[in-house]
């Protein structure tokens, strides 16, 4: 396995109380595999990603669990060792390309910086490599564009630059945290196509974090559904759309617009709001919003059980 996450717990110690942003997530990712993490805002998707990078911002802390990357325990790494991994073997793309590039450095300087942080290369070679990578992400006139500042790029082009920076050292794992959320739909499609192509070309694993199940269907083999910092369902993409078991997944699927339904019908929504992560409801965190709620749901957290091979669900309906 390229990445094994086991019982990962990341809590934020705020003045109002302990926020259990990620509360016992486990999953595996083979080399070259693709995993989508879906869930509403505040379900702990991004914190999961940051935890893998060991970049959880204060007052958050990873308080338990195991992160195995390429056979190495990330939790035991020193900060210096982690720095060598970040951007080199695990890379990350952020949500908003408008703000994730440094405005006072040229795009080229930022790509080159990543290369030179991890590879002993003369500056000149690093620049040539930067050109190659920008061409790889299909930025026209890459050689000239390297000298431009981020504000001279459009949103889609900036996200390509972000991808270029992430890929500069040919990482084994790319974590994309809502990479298309702030882009308009046509650009979204382009970026997803690009990621698909690059994945094939570079044979890297991808974790795609999104609340858009459509994107997951485009890019991912496996899906992990998160709710309130917890894992609800984990299976492959086909099963999610055809045979998902968890009521929360059903809710997410029903809230998607569909071309094969009459347009007059309103989209279904999941009633209520995600719970406060400081005061989680007892039992299953989803029970206050669940249509199928039973007595057990209110008392005890359901175990994660394997309903069929490679299909894990945490719900009392199947216990």
């Amino acid at each position, binding site marked *: 396995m390229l990445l094994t996450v086991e019982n990962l717990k990341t809590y934020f110690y705020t003045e109002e109380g302990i926020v259990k942003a990620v509360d016992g997530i486990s999953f595996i990712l083979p080399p070259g595999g693709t995993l989508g993490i879906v869930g509403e805002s505040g379900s702990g998707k991004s914190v999961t990603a940051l935890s893998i990078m060991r*970049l959880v911002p204060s007052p958050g802390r990873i308080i338990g669990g195991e992160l195995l990357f390429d056979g190495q325990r990330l939790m035991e790494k020193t900060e210096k060792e*982690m720095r060598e991994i970040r951007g*080199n073997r695990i890379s990350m793309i952020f949500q908003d390309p408008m*703000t*994730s590039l440094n405005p006072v450095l040229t795009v080229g300087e930022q790509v080159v910086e990543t290369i030179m942080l991890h590879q002993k290369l003369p500056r*000149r070679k690093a*620049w040539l490599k930067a050109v190659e990578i920008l061409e790889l992400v299909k930025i026209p006139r890459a050689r000239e564009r390297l*000298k431009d*500042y981020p504000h001279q790029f459009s949103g889609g082009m900036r996200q390509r630059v972000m991808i270029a*920076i992430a890929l500069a050292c040919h990482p084994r794992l790319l974590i994309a945290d809502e990479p298309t959320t702030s882009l308009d739909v046509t650009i979204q499609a382009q970026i997803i196509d690009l990621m698909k192509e690059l994945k094939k070309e570079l044979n890297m694993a991808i974790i795609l974090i999104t609340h858009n199940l459509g994107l997951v269907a485009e890019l991912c083999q496996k899906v992990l559904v998160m709710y309130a910092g917890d894992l609800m369902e984990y299976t492959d993409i086909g099963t999610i759309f055809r045979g998902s078991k968890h009521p929360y997944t059903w809710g997410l699927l029903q809230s998607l617009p569909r071309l094969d339904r009459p347009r007059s019908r309103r989209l279904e929504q999941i009633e209520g709001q995600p719970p406060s992560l400081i005061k989680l409801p007892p039992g299953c965190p989803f029970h206050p919003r669940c249509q199928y709620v039973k007595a057990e749901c209110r008392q005890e957290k359901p175990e994660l059980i394997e309903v069929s091979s490679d299909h894990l669900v945490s719900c009392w309906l199947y216990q």
Partner: protein
Amino acid sequence: MKVLKQSVEIKKREAEEKKQEVEVIRTTSLLMYTLKRLSKNHVAILGLGLIIFVILVAIFAPVLAPYHPIKYVNILKSMVPPGKEYPLGSDYLGRDVLARIIYGARISLMVGLVAEMVALSIGIIFGSLAGYYGRWIDQLLMRITDIIYAFPTVLFAIAIMAVFERPSITQLFLVLGFLGWTDIARLVRAQFLAIKEREYTEAARAIGAGDRRIIFRHILPNCLAPVVVATTVGIAGNILSEAWLSFLGLGAQPPLPSWGLMLNEGQTYLMAGKYWLAVFPGLAIMVTVLGFNLFGYGFRDAIDPRLR
């Protein structure tokens, strides 16, 4: 023959590649970019013009000054109004006011720049450490800043300068620098607090950059716009401070041709109608301070690639 042809071709290709490499490396630096935008800002250009004028005067003082500022004394020709012999008049010792103003530019610029360098170094270090690391480091450094800030500047400067038996320009650098850094520290800290939360700082961390790199390469340059403004305004402030400290007799000492000192010497005669003794040094101070202030605000608009 064939081999030869190939090798020639390979060489050609190599040369071509090298040419391309050179092209790639020549990027537009932030400096060039700033200068380009600066050139379109008339106010900044006016300010820069004034600054350059003062700097040139300071550099070429020996060439420009008609007399020696200190050594030329002629009691018989004291208090001569501006005219042919003394373009800006002469003082009570018969020294040439113009020559003294020209040499005074050296003192003013030196005090302004060196004191600001002192202030800038302390301020940037305090501000960036406090802003970046937060927690107790922030508390400690900012409380120190508050303490320094709470001293009444005028009294504090006077007190320190008075401690020295014979105040000198060097002490002036240190005192003004020591008093001037708090603004910069607070400014830098505030910028750091904002910028360290930006996504590009997180992105820098995600490519494996360490604290030092993030502070100096990613955050500090993004704070530069307001810091440059504060610096130029600070230089102007230092020049003014030097003037009033000298005016009070606590800065430059006679016979140094400091503008503040000249004002001090001239104010006695102002009521007697000998306006040139005070007015011209005053004008010199005004022009210099104005130059730095205008340049500072123009520069702010030019340096920030986002303000378009």
